[in-house]
Structure formats: C-alpha cells, structure tokens
C-alpha cells in the first residue's frame, strides 16, 4: 500500500527534477561567477569588507576609460536609436514595397549578430588607409580622407563601426512597436481634425516613447559590453573600459586583482541599470497596448 504522503512527495520531487538541471546550470555558470565578481569588488584579499576597491575606479586611466566607454556607448546608442527608427519607419510605414521590409528585417537579423572581429576587419578593408572607400575617394575625387583628420582607429571610426550593429538591433526592436501603431489611431485623429504633425505629437510619439527609451537603454548596454570590435579595430589605441578589464584579466597591465573586480562591478552596475530601465519601460509600453 502506498501512502498518500509518499505519492505527493514523489509528485513534488519529480516536478522539481524537471527544472533542476536548468537552475543548477544557471547557478553554477551564471549567478555564482557574477556574484563572485561583485563580492570581490567589495572585499580585501583577506575576505574582509571594504569600499576601497571602488575608489580605485577614480584613478586617472580607469576614470578616462570609463568616460570613453560611457561616451561611445551613449553616443552610438543615441545615433543608433534615431537612425534605426528612421530606417524602421521607412520600411514599416513609409510606403516602400513589402519585399524591402522582409529584406531589411532579414539583413538586420544578420548584421545585429555581425559584431566582433569580422566587423572590425570589414571596416578596415573599407575605411582603413588602403580601404576601398579611401582609395576610391583618392583616385576618383582626389580627396584624401585621412588628411581631413579622419582616422578609423579614433572615436569617430569606432562609432561608425558600432553603428553597424546598433542600427540593425534598433530596427529589430522598434519594428514591432511601429507595427503596434494602429492605422485607425491616425484616422481617428484625422477625423477629429488633427494634422499629421499633431497626430505624431499627441498620439504616436507618446505611445512610442517607452519603446524608444527602452531601446536606447538596450543599445547602450549592448555597446558598453562590446569588446572584440574595438580591440580588433583599434588595438589598444582606444582604451575603453572592457579592454582595460580584458588586459587586467590577462594579467598584462594592472597588478591589483581588485581593480579588475571593481571595473567588472562598475560594468555590471551600468549595463544592469540600463537594462532595468529597459525592462521597466518595456512593461509600461506593453501595458498600453492591451
């Protein structure tokens, strides 16, 4: 005879067995490593708690790297948001043939995953000193773009490369939101006497606003965490924060391991903060669209 208790116990156990591998995996390979880093940022080598590590962030080169990372991330997120919105707007509601929409969406899926090393190579091959555009500008128009102060391994160059994955990501994120703008809203506004500008100001932008801000936050985090593109493009010419961390982990540059923890913590705090904003705004945006 089986007691009801043991049946229930078995049920509960088998329920949890189904999700156990996932939780164990997430704990061991995602949560614990991250926690380890975060805790490391607040402890001394002997394990005692301290805030001193964070003050290491305030040292010159690291502060400069943090500033550079923030600038490049905010700037490419800003440009990416605007350009991505324009591209998405053009293909989703700009009256272009539907074929183009499919093509742009597919391409965006590819390009948003085309970050990293190959992207840097592509820009070197195009805008580097011997790149296609550089050479053609010289041969056809007699313009030496490098004489104008342009340099691919500069802030501008990195921005151009980052936009290559930022814009497609924005297109992918914002297109559903643009689709969510219902045609009847525009018609209702028109029948109530509103002009196109009034419709955008009073209805469309307010509806899109949370999605736009949210997308901006995601783009920011996306750029902030990126390492490989900058490294392959500029070598060590541009020290963004993740590159400093990379070097620190490799043990080439900084001596104090706790600087690494502190940098890592700063990165988590910033990308995490950006994503919390993103998720929060996202929830607000979706609440409206019920």
């Amino acid at each position, binding site marked *: 005879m089986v007691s009801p208790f043991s049946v229930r116990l078995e049920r509960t156990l088998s329920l949890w067995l189904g999700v156990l591998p996932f939780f164990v995996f997430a704990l061991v390979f995602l949560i614990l490593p*991250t926690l380890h880093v975060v805790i490391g940022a607040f402890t001394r080598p002997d394990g005692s708690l301290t805030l001193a590590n964070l003050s290491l962030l305030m040292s010159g080169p690291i502060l400069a790297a943090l500033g550079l990372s923030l600038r490049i991330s905010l700037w490419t997120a800003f440009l990416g948001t605007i350009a991505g919105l324009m591209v998405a707007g*053009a293909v989703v509601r700009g*009256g272009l043939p539907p074929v183009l929409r499919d093509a742009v969406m597919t391409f965006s899926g590819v390009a948003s995953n085309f970050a990293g090393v190959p992207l840097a190579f592509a820009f070197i091959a195009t805008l580097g000193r*011997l790149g296609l555009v550089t050479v053609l500008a010289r041969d056809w128009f007699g313009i030496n773009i490098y004489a104008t102060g342009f340099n691919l391994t500069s802030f501008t160059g990195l921005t151009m490369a980052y936009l290559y994955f930022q814009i497609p990501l924005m297109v992918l994120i914002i297109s559903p939101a643009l689709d969510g703008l219902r045609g009847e809203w525009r018609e209702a506004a028109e029948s109530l006497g509103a002009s196109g500008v009034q419709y955008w100001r009073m209805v469309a932008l307010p509806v899109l606003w949370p999605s736009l801000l949210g997308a901006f936050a995601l783009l920011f985090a996306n750029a902030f965490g990126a390492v490989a593109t900058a490294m392959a493009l500029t070598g060590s010419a541009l020290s963004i924060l993740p590159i400093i961390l990379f070097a620190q982990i490799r043990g080439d540059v900084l001596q104090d391991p706790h600087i690494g923890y502190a940098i890592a913590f700063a990165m988590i705090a910033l990308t995490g903060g950006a994503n919390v904003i993103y998720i929060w705004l996202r929830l607000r945006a979706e609440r409206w669209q019920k």
Partner: protein
Amino acid sequence: MTAKRIGSWAVFILAAVYFLLPLVGTLEFSLRARRGVYSLDAYRNVLGDPQFQQTLAYSLILSVATVVLGVLIVAPTAFWVRLKMPRLRPVVEFITLLPLVIPPIIIVFGYIRLFNTASILPLTGSSRGTDFLLAAGYATLSLPYMYRAIDTGLRAIDVRTLTEAAQSLGAGWVTVLARVILPNIAVAILSGAFLTFAIVIGEYVIAALLNRPAFGPYMVWMGSNRAYEPAALAVIAFGMTWASMAVIQFLARRTRFTKV
C-alpha cells in the same frame, strides 16, 4: 503622400549604402592579395592554413556541443514551466535574460576566478575541463535566444491541450515528449540552435580569456599579422552568419505554414 515616399526611399538608400559598402569593401579587399590583379590568393592562404582548419573545426564542434547543452538545459525546463509550474515563469525568464545584462567578459572573469586550479571544481586545470567551461559559457550566452525560441515554439502548439489529448489517448510521458511535443517544436529548437551557432562561431572574448584555440582568437591573430587574409576571414564569417540566418528564416517560414 509622395513626399513621405521620397523620404522613405532616401532613408532606405542611405542605409543601404552604409550597410553594403563595408561588405563590398571587404570582398574587394580580400581579392587584392596579389599586386595589380584580383585573385583568390587570400582565400587560398586562409583555407590552406592548418591553423584555420583546426580552429574552425574546434569552434564548429564546440558550437554543436553548446547547442546540445543548451537544448538539454532549456527545453525540459521551458516545457515543464509551461505545463506544470507556470508560477516559475517569471523567475526562469529573468534568469534567461541575465546574459543580456551581464557582459560576457564579466562572466568569463568569474569563471577564471571561480573554477581555477585551487577551487572545488578546478575546470581550468585541464584542457578538457576548459573546453567544457567554454561550452558552458557559450550555452549561458545563448540562454536568452534558446529560451525565447523554444518557448515561442511551445506557445504556438498549446502544450497543455496537446499533452492532455495524448494522455487521454493513453500515451505515457515518454511518448508525449518524444512523439508529440518534440516533433512539434523541432523547428523552434533548430532556429534557436542556428542563432546560437551564429553567435558562438566567431566569439572572441571568452575563448581568448580561457586560452582555447577557437576561431575568434585565430581571426584576431590574423588581423594583427596579415593584411588581406583578415578580409577573406570576414567574408567567410559573414557568409556563415548569413547561412545560419537563411536557415532560420527558412525554418520560420515553414512553421508559418504549419500554423493554423
């Protein structure tokens, strides 16, 4: 109306130029290896390089391992959460989104400190162990994509009803999973798998910091030592990403047909 369309075309053409020029530039550059004429020398050098073959093979095998690991971890959980434990959904969703929040470099930093030779789980001590750690890292990176793909697949087929229908016809759990659920979400799993593949194949940071001979570090090494071969590598990498996306699109279209 027409002004709007002209504006749309202008935006589209500008974007097309920005996005296509680097591709054309890369292709052109990759053909310039021989002075004065276009040739496939750069590709010949790359493809003939034993390092290329080894690192690409390593990354391919690793990406397959990653996909298998990812599916094994995500699929049963996604199924279980949908069917029996909907209360866990927010938790699971939150965890699967974490890799988008935490930069990969942080995760691998944690790995190196946590699984070093002095720890309880000294994975970095052996190369097999490090390989596994790399696969685990990639599986972690792929969690958001894998979970979303599979969960979408499960939502599309209404798991609960299908399972109950199968059970009422006398099927046991194994039959339900193997004959009913899996075939119906195979397409979703595959598209998650190819997305994972696209992300993993050229990944640099984790592989480099774990010191594994993967394709990403190889590309960087080429980048700092050769002139034209990196462009050829970029073309090859882009081709592989493109191929994975094409497969995903194709699969997505097939699901659309099977949907009611």
